């Protein structure tokens, strides 16, 4: 028995030294206590935070910069903060706190503010202590608690104390691998739930990974209901209550002066008879004419602005565009609904998480001849009929009427909808490789190309931009005669044409010349570093790339051999490359497909196998010899 005690005493110490050596900064403590009081049907909600951090080295003293955010739904009070220097047993108070705003790239105006300050006198060994309160002004915004954060935490605790007649719901995510303790206590008229966990590791994001909410252990709390004189009053008992609330917000949409909006809708569709085409025309009009400008301002962040003002001002955010579409579409007789949705960054379901945290976006849904079509006009280039890529797989909450709603899953778009077809004719003049290439892009392949071209090209010339993004041949590839057709949001493929001169690509030694027909090496850099990689790999959309490459053997040469067919076939990803020769023309057919939106950790080996096979296939050159 004695041995076991010693062991358990030692164990945390060992865990500590294992976990936190090599760290620069850790949290000794991150505690949050939520106190809920109910007073004649009104909630008083206060969150009390108590945190302690420690600098193990002087490398990341920037952790001394603290910023506590709040907005129209919350207030920050009673900040007490100081630095403690254990060696000198000295306490130095934070004596200056500023209220600040920041400009966000994505949101033009936001009521988000922060209390910012810097802990004084931090150095290796220093501890920082912070306590403050957050007043939660609306009972629907209890928020979420993260059991882990950027750096490791020794002691993590969340507790919530509430009157017995209140029912609290909670749901945790990604906690299965961590020994989180849960305790329920009843004291007098109050109940307390407490979650504790020790020695939680740090969580840092990775490139091309799902959002942090997919792997960070966290919990969402919400008030389900409370009982009052035998009557149950729901707050957010389930998705019905969430919808009821959304419904009251919709009621307050300003519906004045809709005539103008209706007139525009009529005008756009006057010469069209089919419903589908009418819907498409209206959707394209909103995509083309309303610029995305986002506002987040208290409840204003939840209530769409009037369709007529959005139409006049020609700008709006997601909910403004969704509501404008709603007014226009219904006016011309198309069944259309305002639709709430969470983007792929939020891994939640309305059925599990009946709180406003579940969604962060609004779109419009139309139903035409039993066909459900999701319309997201914030994506200026997505073609009618396809949802925005970042809403695939997500539940859409359609507001049917004041009391009823429907939850429908946005389907993943088939890989055959997003196809790049690349036709290349390669010739060789001395050692210069010349290519005549046509790329035809559909679906998300088209959407991505146009958005990147519009917003990421910067000051680069078209030639340089294509060279650095398409990465065909090598970075000395020279682009000429570039043309783009159907550079729009329509369902017709975007066609990109150009001629290429690729210097230093073919290699000649003695009477032989070697040329590799894989001038486009899609995915060759996508190997996953399995040893260090922690989280699943995110893929924005399913796609296919089909290549047909022909190579004309120059006069006076003959080809020695052509590579064999290579195939990698898997349900989720694969390729097939084959070569054929007819007369003096060698043709390469190449198909690459990715038929999944995510590569899980368990699939990393297979994925790497696929990439390795592909890069090996890319290595196959053609040899021609002077006759």
């Amino acid at each position: 028995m004695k041995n076991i005690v010693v062991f358990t005493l030692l164990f945390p110490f060992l865990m500590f030294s294992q976990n936190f050596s090599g760290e620069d900064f850790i949290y000794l403590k991150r505690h949050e206590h939520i106190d809920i009081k109910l007073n004649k049907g009104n909630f008083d909600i206060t969150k009390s935070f108590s945190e302690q951090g420690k600098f193990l080295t002087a490398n990341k003293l920037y952790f001394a910069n603290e910023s506590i955010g709040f907005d129209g739904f919350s207030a920050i009070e009673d900040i007490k903060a100081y630095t403690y220097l254990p060696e000198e047993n000295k306490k130095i108070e934070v004596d200056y706190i500023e209220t600040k705003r920041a400009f966000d790239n994505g949101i033009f105006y936001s009521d988000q503010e922060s209390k910012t300050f810097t802990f004084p006198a931090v150095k290796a060994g220093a501890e920082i202590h912070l306590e403050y309160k957050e007043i939660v002004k609306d009972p629907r915004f209890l928020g979420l608690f993260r059991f882990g954060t950027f750096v490791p935490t020794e002691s993590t605790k969340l507790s919530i104390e509430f009157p017995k007649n209140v029912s609290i719901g909670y749901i945790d995510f990604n906690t299965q691998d961590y020994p989180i303790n849960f305790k329920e206590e009843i004291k007098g008229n109050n109940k307390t739930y407490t979650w504790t966990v020790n020695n939680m590791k740090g969580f840092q994001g990775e490139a091309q990974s799902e959002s942090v909410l997919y792997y960070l252990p966290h919990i969402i709390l919400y008030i389900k209901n409370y009982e009052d004189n035998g009557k149950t009053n729901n707050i957010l008992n389930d998705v019905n209550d969430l919808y009821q609330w959304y419904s009251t917000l919709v009621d307050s949409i300003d519906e004045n002066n809709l005539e103008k909006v209706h007139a525009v809708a009529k005008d756009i569709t006057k010469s069209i008879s089919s419903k589908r085409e009418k819907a498409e025309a209206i959707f394209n009009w909103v995509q083309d004419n309303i610029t995305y400008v986002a506002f987040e301002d208290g409840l204003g962040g939840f209530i769409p602005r009037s369709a007529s003002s959005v139409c006049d001002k020609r700008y709006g955010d997601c909910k403004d565009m969704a509501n404008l579409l709603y007014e226009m579409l219904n006016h011309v007789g198309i069944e259309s609904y305002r639709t709430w949705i969470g983007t792929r960054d939020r891994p939640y379901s309305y059925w599990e998480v009946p709180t406003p945290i579940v969604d962060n976006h609004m779109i419009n849904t139309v139903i035409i001849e039993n066909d459900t079509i999701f319309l997201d006009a914030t994506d200026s280039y997505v073609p009618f009929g396809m949802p925005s890529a970042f809403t695939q797989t997500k539940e859409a909450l359609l507001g049917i009427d004041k009391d009823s709603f429907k939850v429908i899953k946005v389907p993943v778009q088939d890989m055959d909808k997003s196809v790049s077809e690349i036709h290349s004719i390669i010739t060789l003049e001395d050692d210069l490789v010349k290519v005549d290439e046509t790329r035809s892009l559909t679906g998300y392949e088209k959407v991505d190309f146009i958005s990147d071209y519009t917003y990421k090209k910067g000051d680069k010339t078209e030639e340089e931009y294509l060279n650095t993004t398409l990465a065909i041949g090598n970075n000395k590839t020279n682009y000429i005669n570039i043309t783009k057709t159907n550079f729009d949001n329509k369902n017709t493929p975007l066609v990109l044409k150009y001629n290429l001169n690729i210097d230093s690509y073919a290699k000649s030694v003695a009477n032989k010349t070697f040329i590799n027909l894989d001038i486009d090496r899609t995915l060759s850099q996508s190997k996953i570093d399995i040893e260090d990689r922690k989280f699943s790999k995110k893929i924005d959309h399913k796609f296919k790339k089909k290549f047909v490459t022909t190579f004309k053997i120059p006069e006076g040469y003959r080809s020695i051999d052509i590579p064999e067919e290579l195939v990698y076939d898997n349900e989720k990803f694969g390729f097939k490359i084959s070569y054929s020769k007819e007369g003096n023309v060698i043709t390469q057919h190449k198909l690459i497909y990715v038929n999944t939106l995510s590569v899980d950790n368990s699939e990393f080996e297979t994925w790497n196998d696929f990439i390795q096979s592909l890069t090996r296939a890319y290595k196959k050159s053609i040899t021609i010899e002077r006759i």
Partner: protein
Amino acid sequence: MIKNSILVVVFLITTNSFAQFYKTYDWKETPEIHQLSKEEQKEPSVGILKKHVVEYAKSMFGDLLKVYETDHTITRVNNDKGIAKHNTVYIPMYEVINVLDIKARTINAEGKVTVLNKDNIKEVKNVDEYGDFKIFAIEGVEKNSEIEVLYTVEKEYDMHGQQNIQGEYPIREAQFLFITGDANAQIKAYRTESKFESVTINNTIGKLLTIKNIPAMVEEEYSTPDANKIAVAYQCFPKEQNITQEMFWSNVVNNVGPQFFPEEPITVVTDDLPNVTSGKTNLSVFEKANLLDDYIKTNFTIVKNNNAELSDVNYILKNKSASTFGILKAYAQYLKALDIKYEIVITANRYLKKFDPDFFNPNQLQEFLIYLPTEEKYIATDRLEYRVGEAPFNILGNYGLYITDSLEYYFSKIVQTDPNFSSINRVMDITFDEELQSATLKQSQEYTGHWSATSRAILNFYPEQSIKEYEDYLTGSGIEDKVVESYEALNTELLQLEYNKPFKTSSTITSESLLEEVGDSYLFQIGKVIGTQSELYQETKRVNPIEMQYPNQYDYTITIHIPKGYTAEGLEELNIDKSYKSVKGNKLCKFESSYKVEGNKVIITIQEFYKSNEYDLNRYEEFREVINAASDFNKTAILLKAIE
């Protein structure tokens, strides 16, 4: 009745004698859409008019000067990118006392005019380090619309000001109107041939600069576009004062200087010295300064907020927190206590502003350095990754105001004193497995100067993902299928007591993709082992002067062990020799590679260097050839041919 008439009279007098420009200036009653040329139609946006007016006017009572600034722009937006760039407006409220008017309107291609609803102007307080703003989104914008914004603010009197004239988009006509009446005023325009003309506006004297057809300032490699824009700087002070540039500079030196050169250090500082030097004695000046630099950077924090106490030396020493300005006082105290001779340098980030010693403009006093004249080295007080050495690269090449301990001053270009400060040395050994399926690259590298500062900064300060990406770079970038068999970094700590001690790595990687099968022989992509090299493109005429980050040099030795049964062919293309010579014939930058065969070994030597960080814009093509030579080498391959 009598009262009223007095009011009217007073009002009349004021309008007559102080008819400020903004009161009589307005936009056209009805806007009209402008015709664009074919070239202009291709641009995301085009500035039709960009007019800025600064008026120094006497206030109603006495001679105190007031400042009014009017900004008027008409901008055509042709596509989504143009709309996104111009459809939100941020008006800084820095020094603004009154917003006199803000208005905006849009005219679309069909001639429909939408006027901004002023209720939609939002106020945003205390944004980051920039202060307050008025912001609004332009209403009624569509593709091919013109956006017109006109506003006037009254500002606190400030003797100095500056304004950028050029934009990131082409501008048909830009005007800067400077109205100063009989006050003393000076104005200087930068990077334009256009001249000011004298004008009389409402009986007041002013100067007008008009520039037509200004090209867009573009981002280019090896350039400082933000600092290269056409701009003006100005000064205006009451007519009875006559202030020369020398007086302005002396004023700064006399105000700021004494704070940086204490007569005696404060006792807490002298008491703290053993913590700085760890009790060591007989330290050289460099060692003392270096230890001090490290001590401050690991015990003090630079804070960016509005707390005035962050410049107070006692507060700084107690709270170990300081502003970027205040931290110099902490350094000064310790330098004095350590008996190290130093000077204070005030300058600017060359990527944002070119420091002009001939025209005083407080806006160029942004960055501080400490110069150690005996060592000819700098302390970059607010740059955590640097220890005593050369000036940070974003300052290198700019002029600076140097203040000595006797409170004298001089200007000097901030140059690198050690020409070989930054270098990369690589030794690489390449072998192949028996089946010639994969190549093994064993590599040891040494990084000095700015290279080592950057490397250490990333490894010490950055999050995991960035460290991972950097390690990928260090072990050979662009080798897509590489497997890192081993990797080790040495001398990673920021504090190195030895001057410019190299940061070292040794690594072994394997790769299959470097070898391509061609019949019974193999193509070995030797060029790829030096990592991805940037290629300088230039389809359009180069705009910006050439400024590299810093002078640096690369020395590589690559040994390839040719496998048994094979010979190496196609080696000729490994010989590359490109250079850019000074007028006297010295090579200022070059890329040279050559090979020799010794038994079964091919030994490649590469030397690439850039002796200066500035090159002549007129010789851009020569510079480009040197830069691209490395990229040429990157494409080379040799044939491992089976011996028949």
